[in-house]
């Protein structure tokens, strides 16, 4: 089956700046695909090229089998786009936002109206149908933006940083909605710099940094490949971390020294902690956790994802 998105050597330059530097990836239909990377990695630029609102500088890109530079309107009519910043229509009420947006695709008004009602239920906003957009909370606005992106029954739903700026509770509500879409077989393409979000929602992802793909795979495969099963996080106090790390040399598969803590990669964190104590080292706090995509990113780039 042909992939719904295929990029080869995809590049975008703005003057001297290369925002996207020759990336290759494919997204098959029904997959939930993520672009994980820090701010400025080129994720949004990639999304804009896929969304046929930004032309590429070089390379090849096919979305739903079409070239976005030549078939923008055809592609856009089959995409649902959730931009990083909400751009709901503040002059329209909640339900009107959905109907009017559907009309932009040339969908008949009656169809828009019935879909709007279904989507308001899906977004848990039935009670807010007649409210002004400005009266909604941040989480509600996001849900409305997602509902709006679904009004044309898109073949691909594109979400740029869907939960950035939301409180934890609102994020979980949103994840739940997106998970339902995934279960229904909607193709999702999302960018995020939250590894928990990528782990929850993505079947497969690419780690992007400086416009390049550093690694690709499912979240669990990436963790297996680039990190150990567990991580022990030890804090000795800011000025003593480096000194302690020197004494821990060789005790773990890999050691990362961050300004505020030392990370020890190992398959058995608790056993490692015991050996650390046996050495006579007494961290002020210690924690053993499962490895995450954060660790993968740290391994690949030498930097934390959120700084």
């Amino acid at each position: 089956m042909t992939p719904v998105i295929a990029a080869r050597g995809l590049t975008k330059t703005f003057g001297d700046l290369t925002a996207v530097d020759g990336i290759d990836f494919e997204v098959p239909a029904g997959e939930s695909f993520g672009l994980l990377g820090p701010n400025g990695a080129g994720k949004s630029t990639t999304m804009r090229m896929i969304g046929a609102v930004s032309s590429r500088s070089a390379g090849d890109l096919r979305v739903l089998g079409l070239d976005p530079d030549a078939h923008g309107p055809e592609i856009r009519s089959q995409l649902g786009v959730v931009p990083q910043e909400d751009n709901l229509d503040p002059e329209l009420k909640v339900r009107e936002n959905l109907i009017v947006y559907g009309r932009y695709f040339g969908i008949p008004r009656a169809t828009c109206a019935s879909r709007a009602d279904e989507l308001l239920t899906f977004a848990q906003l039935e009670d807010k149908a007649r409210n002004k957009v400005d009266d909604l909370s941040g989480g509600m606005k996001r849900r409305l933006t997602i509902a709006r992106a679904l009004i044309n029954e898109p073949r691909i739903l594109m979400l740029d940083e869907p939960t950035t700026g939301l409180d934890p509770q609102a994020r979980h509500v949103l994840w739940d909605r997106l998970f339902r879409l995934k279960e229904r077989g909607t193709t999702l393409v999302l960018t995020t710099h939250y590894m928990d979000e990528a782990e929850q929602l993505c079947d497969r992802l690419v780690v992007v940094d400086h416009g390049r793909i550093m690694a690709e795979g499912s979240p669990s495969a990436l963790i297996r490949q680039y990190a150990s099963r567990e991580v022990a996080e030890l804090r000795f106090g800011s000025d003593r971390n480096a000194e302690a790390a020197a004494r821990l040399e060789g005790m773990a598969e890999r050691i990362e020294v961050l300004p505020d803590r030392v990370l020890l990669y190992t398959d058995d964190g608790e056993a490692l902690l015991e050996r650390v104590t046996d050495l006579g080292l007494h961290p002020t706090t210690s924690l053993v956790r499962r490895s995450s995509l954060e660790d993968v990113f740290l391994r690949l780039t030498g930097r934390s994802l959120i700084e």
Partner: protein
Amino acid sequence: MTTTTAPAPVRRGGGVRALYAGNARAILMRSLTATKSSNWAVVLSGFFEPVFYLVAMGYGLGSFVGDLTLPGGETVSYAAFIAPGLLAVSAMNGAVYDSTWNVFFKLHFGKLYQAQLTTSIGPLDVALGEISYALLRGGVYALGFLTVMQVMGLNLAWSALAAVPAVLLIAFGFASVGMAVTSYLKTFQQMDWVTFVMLPMFLFSATFYPLSVYPEPIQWLIKAMPLWHGVELVRGLTLGVLDPSMLVHVGYYVVMVVIGLTFTTTRLRALFLD
């Protein structure tokens, strides 16, 4: 990550379809829906403004001025002389207000066009839809004002009916150019330039007195400005003084429409579909 394919030359393509989806109606409907919940005092003020001017200047000032003799020898009341000028001005003001301040807000704060252009809507749909709304509003004001003129006995000929399409054309011209200019502006300070151009044009474009009061070079300057053509066109129609030169006035606005739409469409595409 090595690129095996040589970077192919990438061009913007898609022809007319990339610019126009034939769905300007959806943009117009959006504006009408938004008007439902807008401030009606502001909407109505567009109707009353020229009426107030007509009463204050036409009757108040007109009682001192007396009647005017037109170049063709006809004598008309001062109110009948300025009413068509005010009609053209109200078309200009309505069109410019909608296509500058409203467009500026939607462009930079509401992010409306950005959202619209992620759908299958094209930049020309946006331009035409937004301008149609300005026209519709201008057309309603024009009909209202013409009715007032009729009641006051200021429409001196049947050709006054043709003032409605004339006013729509004037509004179309100003709205197209207004939206084009606005799409290039970045700050509120730059928006003040619009007012800086509009006010003198309103005062000096033979709105309140014949152009013949000016020395010749000034007359040419005024004739190069768009509003004068509108004032002359509408005045000829409401007073019943028809003249082939009216076609020049019409042509002036057609050119404004074409230039305005071209720049607006190009600019919207550059801004949101780079």
